[in-house]
């Protein structure tokens, strides 16, 4: 998915869930910033008062290209970025988390068992089975747990909205990126060259470069079965991120072709996002099987936005042509009131949070600091969830189960007249300030670990 859904879609979902425009703005910005928090926007620990080492949540195409000659991100870093932030694993039955829909969700492997390439051969061995488990699927145990974790642990934290936005990105991607994995794996992510556009009748082959007007994709190669070309949906180019397309392709892992109906899946995940956001806001347990209602006229309007077709090949290299077209459709729909009184979000600027760091004295108050804190929280959560299910984050390395994070106390305010029973002999006195004897109508309290102090 691109900015059209991650920014505008998330903003509208947050507004439907009851978030104020300024809160929805932060949530939406964080959702899109997952695709923009790259190495060049990371500030090292110690600079500008940053007291931890930020991690990237995305790699540029250029960085990935360098990996092919060994000087880009390591395989371990690829996993740290693409597994938790873009291809949330879901193709395994969880023992550690509630997993009521595993039989419906889990895909069976019906692909090849062996293959021989130019220099290497490949077997469907333990490593290959692990890679298949990392396949991203919607409605996975982790996708539910990460929302409920916000409710249980991060309500009221300074980075709550940033973590919500970041996880809305992850949640949305489970729809677009279903059946692909955030690890370079030939047998999961490769597919036959012929892909069909089913939105036209009769169905037509999707054109690939160098055909004029063709889509860009990564090439197939059997030199290395774990080549970077087999990371995520690179072999399918941008098709999984086009909201309008219904396409048929034949992934290597399946003995039969697969149909992906993006507008249907995108609309469904939009409703899941509204539900998740509403559950977080109202501190209700999230369950993607019980979707919150959204007015039918708005659902119809969003369905119409998603189905606006554009030409193939517009996003090649520049990655902006088709995205700008789709963002314009969201903006027009908001402007015309088709989505209700949600208001227009600010223009998204990918450097806004990064640049604000240079102009502040209190780094911990910046969106940049809070987003990057949230990124580490999310990475460690996914590592913890996988580790508790016995799934290594990197093949051949020990299973990682990061310790539960220490969540700080949260300062809140309560009505002075609504306090619980006081210990005998004590009275409660809250003032408006340090140098006044005026009583305050509210009292500061802290909320922590289920207690109020």
């Amino acid at each position, binding site marked *: 998915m691109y900015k059209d859904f991650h920014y505008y879609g998330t903003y509208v979902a947050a507004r439907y869930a009851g978030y104020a425009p300024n809160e929805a703005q932060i949530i939406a910005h964080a959702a899109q910033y997952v695709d923009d928090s790259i190495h060049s926007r990371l500030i090292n620990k110690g600079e500008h008062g940053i007291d931890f080492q930020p991690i990237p949540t995305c790699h540029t195409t250029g960085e990935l290209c360098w990996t092919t000659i060994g000087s880009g991100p390591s395989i371990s870093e690829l996993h740290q970025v693409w597994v938790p932030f873009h291809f949330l694993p879901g193709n395994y039955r969880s023992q550690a988390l509630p997993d009521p829909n595993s039989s419906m969700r889990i895909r069976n492997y019906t692909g090849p068992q062996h293959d021989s390439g130019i220099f290497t051969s490949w077997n469907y061995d333990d490593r290959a089975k692990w890679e298949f488990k990392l396949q991203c699927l919607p409605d996975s145990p982790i996708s539910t747990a990460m929302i409920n974790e916000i409710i249980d642990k991060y309500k009221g934290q300074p980075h709550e909205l940033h973590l919500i936005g970041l996880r809305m990105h992850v949640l949305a991607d489970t729809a677009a990126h279903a059946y692909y994995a955030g690890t370079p794996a030939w047998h999961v992510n490769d597919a036959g060259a012929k892909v069909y556009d089913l939105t036209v009748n009769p169905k037509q082959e999707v054109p690939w470069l160098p055909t004029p007007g063709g889509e860009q994709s990564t090439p197939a190669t059997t030199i290395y079965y774990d080549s970077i070309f087999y990371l995520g949906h690179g072999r399918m180019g941008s098709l999984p991120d086009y909201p309008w397309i219904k396409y048929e392709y034949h992934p290597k892992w399946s003995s039969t072709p697969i149909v992906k109906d993006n507008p249907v899946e995108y609309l469904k995940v939009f409703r899941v996002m509204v539900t998740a956001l509403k559950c977080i806001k109202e501190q209700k347990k999230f369950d993607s099987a019980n979707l919150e209602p959204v007015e039918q006229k708005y659902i119809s309007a969003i369905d119409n936005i998603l189905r606006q077709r554009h030409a193939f090949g517009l996003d090649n290299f520049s990655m902006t042509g088709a995205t700008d077209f789709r963002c314009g459709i969201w903006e027009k729909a908001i402007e015309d009131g088709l989505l209700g009184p949600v208001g227009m979000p600010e223009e998204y600027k990918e450097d806004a949070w990064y640049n604000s760091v240079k102009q502040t004295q209190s780094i911990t108050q910046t969106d940049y600091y809070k987003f990057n804190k949230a990124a580490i929280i999310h990475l460690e959560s996914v590592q913890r969830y996988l580790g508790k299910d016995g799934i290594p984050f990197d093949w051949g390395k020990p299973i990682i189960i990061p310790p539960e994070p220490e969540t700080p106390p949260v300062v809140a305010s309560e009505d002075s007249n609504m306090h619980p029973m006081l210990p005998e002999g*004590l009275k409660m006195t809250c003032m408006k300030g340090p140098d006044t004897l005026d009583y305050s109508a509210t009292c500061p309290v802290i909320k*922590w670990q289920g*207690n109020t*102090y």
Partner: protein
Amino acid sequence: MTIVAYNSAGNIVHQWYKEGARYIWQITVDEIAKTVTFWGQSNNKICMSWNELLTNEINTVLNMRC
């Protein structure tokens, strides 16, 4: 000043008596030092570590600098 901890049912689970400040008007949290500061009249303050807020040990000595 006495800091009282209530559970979600409104029952008292612990209390700490601290000398040094009265008449609370503000609370601040230092995430780096892992402390909570209770601000009172004339900006006198009481500082408690997060660990202390979790323990059952009654501590009447001001032993933190915030």
